[in-house]
C-alpha cells in the first residue's frame, strides 16, 4: 500500500465561492436577501407573504424566489401577492445551492426589489450545508412538528441566528409548549432569536421582522 497526500480542494469551498459571487451581486444591486429554510408545511411561504405585506406597507419593495423539487405553486402564490418572483425546480435535489441561485439571479429583476426572500426546498436538514450568498438565514419550524425539534436537529439550530416557531395558534391543540422549543434553542444558540409566529393571523410577524433587523 502507498499513501498519497492530495489537497486538490475543498468541494464546499467551491460552494462558498459561488455563494460569495451571489452575495456580491446582491450587494452591488442594493438587495438584501434572506434564505428561508424549514420543513415541508412549516409555513415558509405564508410567513414570507406576511413579511412582504408588512414591508410593502413601509415602502420596501419585496421579491421572492421559490425553491421546490417540482411545481410552481409557491411562485404562483408570490405572483398573486404582486411580488416579482421566479422559481427554481431542483429536480431531485433536496436543497438549493449557490449555483442554481446564481442562475436564477441572472434573470431576476433585481432593480425592482430591495429585499429578496429565497424560499429553500422544504427540508429542515439538507439546505443548512449549502450557503447561498444571502445576508441572513431564517429557519421556520412549526409547533406541529413537535417540541423536540431542536433536540433532534441541534447542529441546525446552533448555526441559525433567527428562528420562527410558527403555527403557535395550534400549540394547545397538538399539546406542544412552544417555550420548550425556545429554551432548547437558547441552549444551542445563546446569540440567536426565536420568535413565536402565526402566519395565518399575522401574529409575531412584526417581531420576526425586527429580529431580522428590519
Amino acid at each position, binding site marked *: 500500500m502507498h*499513501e498519497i497526500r492530495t489537497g486538490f480542494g475543498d*468541494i*464546499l*469551498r467551491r460552494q462558498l465561492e459561488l455563494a460569495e459571487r451571489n452575495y456580491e451581486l446582491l450587494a452591488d444591486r442594493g438587495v438584501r436577501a434572506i434564505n428561508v429554510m424549514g420543513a415541508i408545511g412549516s409555513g415558509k411561504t405564508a410567513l414570507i407573504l406576511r413579511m412582504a405585506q408588512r414591508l410593502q406597507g413601509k415602502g420596501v419593495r419585496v421579491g421572492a424566489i421559490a425553491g421546490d423539487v417540482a411545481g410552481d405553486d409557491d411562485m404562483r402564490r408570490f405572483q398573486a401577492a404582486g411580488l416579482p418572483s421566479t422559481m427554481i425546480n431542483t429536480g431531485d435535489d433536496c436543497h438549493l445551492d449557490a449555483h442554481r441561485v446564481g442562475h436564477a439571479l441572472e434573470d431576476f429583476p433585481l432593480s425592482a426589489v430591495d429585499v429578496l426572500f429565497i424560499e429553500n426546498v422544504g427540508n429542515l436538514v*439538507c439546505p443548512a450545508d449549502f450557503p447561498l450568498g444571502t445576508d441572513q438565514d431564517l429557519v421556520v419550524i412549526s409547533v406541529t412538528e413537535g417540541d423536540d425539534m431542536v433536540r433532534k436537529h441541534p*447542529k441546525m439550530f*446552533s448555526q441559525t441566528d433567527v428562528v420562527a416557531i410558527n403555527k403557535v395558534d395550534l400549540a394547545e391543540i397538538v399539546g406542544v409548549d412552544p417555550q420548550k422549543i425556545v429554551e432548547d434553542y437558547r*441552549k444551542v444558540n445563546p446569540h440567536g432569536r426565536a420568535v413565536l409566529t402565526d402566519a395565518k393571523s399575522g401574529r409575531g410577524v412584526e417581531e420576526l421582522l425586527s429580529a431580522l433587523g428590519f
Partner: protein
Amino acid sequence: MHEYSLAHSLLEGLLEHLSAHPVEGRIVKVHVRQGELLILSEEALREAWRILSEGTPLAGSELAIEKVPVVVRCRACGYEGDARYLVEEGWHQAIPILSCPDCGAQVEILEGRDLAIVGLTVEERPGTQLPSG
C-alpha cells in the same frame, strides 16, 4: 439526502484531478476530512460513494472519513481555538456552541464546515513504479 450530491462533487473533483495527475495502481481508499458542523451522515456518504463510483476508475474504493473539530475565533477578545460543547443528557451528541469559551461573545468559524479529499491509499501493482508523493 444531500450526501449524494456531495459524494458526486467529491467524485467528479477527484476524477478530474486524477486525469491531470494520474496515479499508478488501484486506489483503495480515499481520505476525506469532514467538518463537524456539517449535517452529514457518514454512512450515507460512504454508500453514495460506493454507488456513484461504480463504472469509474474509483469503483471499489472506500471513503475513509476523518471528522474535523470546530475551531473558532472571537472578535471581541481574540480567543482562537476549540469551541465550547454542550452536552445534554439524552441528546447523544456533543453540540459545538458558537460562543466564545472565554468571554461568551459570538464567534466566527475558522474550521468545521469543510469537506475535502486529502489523500489516497493506492495498492501497488507488481512491477510498477510508484510516484513519490
